[in-house]
């Protein structure tokens, strides 16, 4: 028979004022299986805990129930006390006599009776409790960072500086991301490349960082502390160990008219190319889709030019496997193209640009070397219109959210334009100006007041081309809804920031949840903004939602700290509240019949297929097995299992059944 100790707390007068605590202790003391029952003023105090510890030893208790406050408050306290007395902490349960009883009811017979019932319920539960051990998982102290934009760069450097190894994977031939494309940055107008490129170089030279550019994640298996990542190294067609990065091949390449991704389509590049002059690594790759040799089987001019013989025509994609303990997702974002906007011409007008394209025009390293010129005829635009909120905050376009960065960069664009074209006239159409951030509002005021940018509050209904001009038809809602028509030379759309292409597929590969717009979902919107629902995978930057550079860097450092904290222990200790599939002696092995309906129900992909094999190695059955590293203990599979083959520790079928039955037995 069980020997359970019951400890009823007065909580000063919090409980005893409405509940007859002495009667509770007395009646529970008479229950079958209860060896010891007392009440005391403050169970959580030092003397209170000592009562429990001593009783555990004195009566040889095999279960403890503390009738006190909410277990959400003091469960760890009392479990620790039990453990110190040598009792398995998971044999201690709490009955919530304060929040769920004394505080919500008046002093009465019924209140005391309810308290007795609540304690009884936990006594019946504890009778079915089993000693549990914390789950320990070894940790591989190496991190995988996916995406080499500013988020990935910052996260990699921060993790690497704590002394842990980092593997940084970048899809493009160079790291740098969108930040490398920007001209100047708000609100200080310092040059983006000037602050970014030193970091890029630092990544390349850091002894703890292994950089894979032109590579993509193929698959990720395993769980926190123990991931296995397969990475596809796309064939660069250039041997980087011998290539000196002299660039001669690039100059000789005859295919010169490929729209440059780095210049957002405004400039051109060759088929063998380095995306931009400050690229890291500063060595070329061959774009096989556009290369004459791969297209038609002839050319090879680059090979003839290369003095060190670095061109590798037959190089194939290579897949490597890396073992890592944590993953930081920093895959960034993308912006909608002008073709997304029927009302602004479906992308058919050359002088209607996206904000990103304008960045390239304004950048000293851009196709016009920083001069603002029209892509159509190269003329300097005398009248320019910026449309903030192009697509964003527009449910009809399927993008109801605010892209957050546009208000600021549009102010910056207008300012840069005014600085470069002194006699130019710029107009910004906006819905609201959202300039929340240090020195942000001041920056926007400067654009309006010092640089005389004309801010019009209202939307633009249509842009069309007539006689070489772009006719912008909008409305000024501050002046009684007056219609505004501007004959502009250039229109810049602050197009919505959207999830990067392929993010949905990547999320599915990693089993990370994502929102309806394919941005990765954080584990908790307030308290776990850098964690994902999959333990060991963290988020940094705009892959979670559009954000600016300081926020991205802050989040990346946050993710890095989470990784470092994970790596600070050799083993990961977890609560043993996890699901378990029963195992029995042969010939049954388990009551699980392997229908694997639990597999689709599990939010964490914790259900694995376990093959039961005979001595001769032949397959007898395939049953489910719970990966204890991945299981978070929700118990959805338990309620779903028809044959009751899965149970969850701490809330087993026997425990909850006993609880329910105890409540109404009379």
């Amino acid at each position: 028979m069980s020997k359970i100790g019951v400890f009823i707390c007065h909580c000063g007068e919090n409980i005893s004022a409405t509940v007859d605590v002495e009667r509770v202790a007395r009646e529970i003391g008479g229950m079958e299986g209860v060896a010891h029952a007392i009440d005391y003023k403050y169970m959580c105090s030092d003397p209170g805990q000592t009562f429990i510890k001593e009783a555990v030893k004195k009566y040889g208790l095999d279960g403890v129930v503390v009738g006190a406050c909410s277990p959400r408050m003091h469960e760890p306290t009392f479990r620790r006390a039990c453990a110190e007395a040598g009792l398995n902490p998971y044999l201690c349960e709490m009955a919530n006599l304060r929040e769920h009883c004394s505080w919500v009811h008046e002093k009465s017979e019924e209140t005391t009776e309810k308290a007795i019932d609540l304690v009884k319920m936990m006594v019946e539960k504890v009778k079915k409790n089993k000693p549990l051990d914390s789950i320990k998982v070894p940790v591989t102290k190496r991190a995988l960072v996916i995406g080499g934009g500013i988020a990935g760069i910052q996260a990699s450097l921060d993790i690497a500086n704590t002394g842990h190894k980092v593997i940084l994977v970048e899809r493009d031939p160079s790291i740098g991301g969108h930040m490398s494309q920007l001209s100047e940055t708000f609100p200080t107008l310092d040059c983006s490349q000037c602050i970014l490129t030193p970091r890029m170089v630092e990544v390349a030279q850091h002894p703890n960082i292994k950089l894979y550019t032109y590579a993509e994640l193929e698959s990720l298996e395993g769980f926190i502390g123990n991931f296995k990542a397969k990475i596809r190294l796309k064939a660069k067609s250039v041997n980087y160990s011998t290539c000196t990065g002299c660039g001669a091949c690039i100059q000789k390449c005859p295919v010169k008219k490929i729209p440059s991704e780095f210049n957002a389509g405004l400039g051109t590049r060759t088929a063998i190319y380095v995306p931009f002059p400050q690229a890291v690594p500063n060595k070329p790759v061959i774009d096989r889709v556009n290369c004459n040799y791969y297209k038609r089987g002839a050319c090879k001019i680059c090979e003839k030019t290369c003095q060190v013989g670095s061109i590798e025509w037959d190089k194939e994609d290579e897949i490597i496997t890396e073992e890592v303990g944590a993953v930081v997702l920093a895959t960034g974002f993308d912006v909608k193209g002008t073709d997304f906007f029927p009302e602004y011409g479906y992308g058919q007008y050359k002088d209607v640009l996206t904000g990103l394209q304008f960045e390239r025009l304004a950048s000293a390293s851009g196709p016009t070397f920083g001069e603002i010129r029209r892509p159509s005829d190269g003329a300097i635009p005398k009248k320019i219109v910026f449309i903030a909120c192009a697509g964003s905050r527009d449910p009809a376009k399927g993008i109801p959210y605010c892209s957050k960065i546009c208000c600021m960069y549009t102010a910056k664009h207008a300012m840069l334009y005014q600085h470069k074209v002194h006699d130019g006239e710029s107009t910004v159409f906006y819905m609201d100006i959202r300039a929340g951030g240090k020195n942000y509002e001041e920056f926007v005021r400067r654009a309006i007041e010092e640089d005389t940018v004309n801010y019009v509050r209202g939307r633009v209904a249509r842009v069309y081309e007539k006689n070489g001009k772009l006719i912008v038809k909008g409305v000024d809602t501050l002046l009684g809804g007056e219609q505004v028509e501007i004959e502009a030379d250039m229109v810049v759309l602050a197009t919505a920031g959207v999830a990067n292409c392929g993010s949905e597929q990547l999320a599915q590969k990693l089993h990370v949840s994502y929102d309806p717009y394919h941005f990765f979902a954080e584990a908790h919107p307030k308290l776990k903004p850098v964690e994902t629902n999959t333990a060991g995978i963290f988020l940094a930057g705009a892959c979670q939602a559009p954000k600016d550079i300081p926020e991205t860097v802050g989040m990346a450092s946050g993710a890095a700290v989470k990784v470092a904290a994970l790596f600070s222990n050799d083993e990961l200790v977890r609560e043993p509240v996890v699901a378990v599939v029963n195992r029995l002696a042969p010939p049954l092995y388990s009551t699980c019949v392997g229908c694997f309906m639990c597999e689709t129900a599990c939010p964490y992909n914790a259900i694995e297929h376990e093959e039961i094999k005979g001595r001769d190695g032949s397959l007898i059955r395939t049953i489910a097995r719970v990966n204890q590293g991945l299981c978070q203990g929700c118990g959805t599979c338990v309620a779903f299992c028809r044959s009751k083959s899965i149970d969850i520790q701490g809330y087993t079928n026997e425990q909850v059944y006993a609880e329910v039955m105890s409540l109404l037995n009379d």
Partner: protein
Amino acid sequence: MKKLRDRAAELLSQGVVSLVIGYEEGTKRPRPLFCRNSEGAEKLIFDSHCFHNLAVYITKKELVGKERFAVTAPISTLRSIMQLYVENQLSEEKLLVITVDLSGELREFTTFDEIAAYVAQFELKRGEREQEILSKIEGMTREERWKFWMEEMSHCFKCYACRSACPLCYCSKCVVEVNRPQWINPWPAPLANMEWHINRAMHMVGRCTACGACGDACPVGIPVDLITRKMMEDLAPEFGYVPGQPAKQGNALSSWKLDDREQFIR
């Protein structure tokens, strides 16, 4: 018929399969036949009276053994086979499925995709008996329904023929045999009977193919098949599944939609 017998004999004699599960003449209606050689195949029949769901046998390891076997399957059996496949209980390598189509031609399926495509042509409809009893139940008040079922359940003596006849009740240990805790009392009593049938219906959500085998098997004539049938009719459109044409993305209860109904949640 001749074609079926010849083909079965051929399969067995050539050793393509070691067993053919089919039908033979019985006293009142066709009964299952398990032929392991070409002589046995002579007894095979296949007509519209062959509706006994043979899928119930194909998960029995002691019966089908480790070698490849064949089953002659009318539509109801084909639907069950599809569901069993989704639940990882069958493999294409082990099972050869034969049916006779509406024009009397023999058809063999070696992949489950073929079966799914074939089954998709047949619509599941209520028969006369189902229509009669269900429309009666549908016209009742709640209290009348409770009385109706309690009366029916008072006849149940827990023989579990409904469970044995169902191809989808293949668990090695059924929940009624679980005794820690004893969820459902083992003795026949109206409440325990009721709990068993509610439990059976819950276990069939998104799975039942409405073959009617459970009701057919009941020795005291309780229309237990109508519980699952009505459940399936009510829920299938809402949860977006078609009985016997299961999608691979999981069972109706192990998946969900963001906009599932919740008016009943306060």
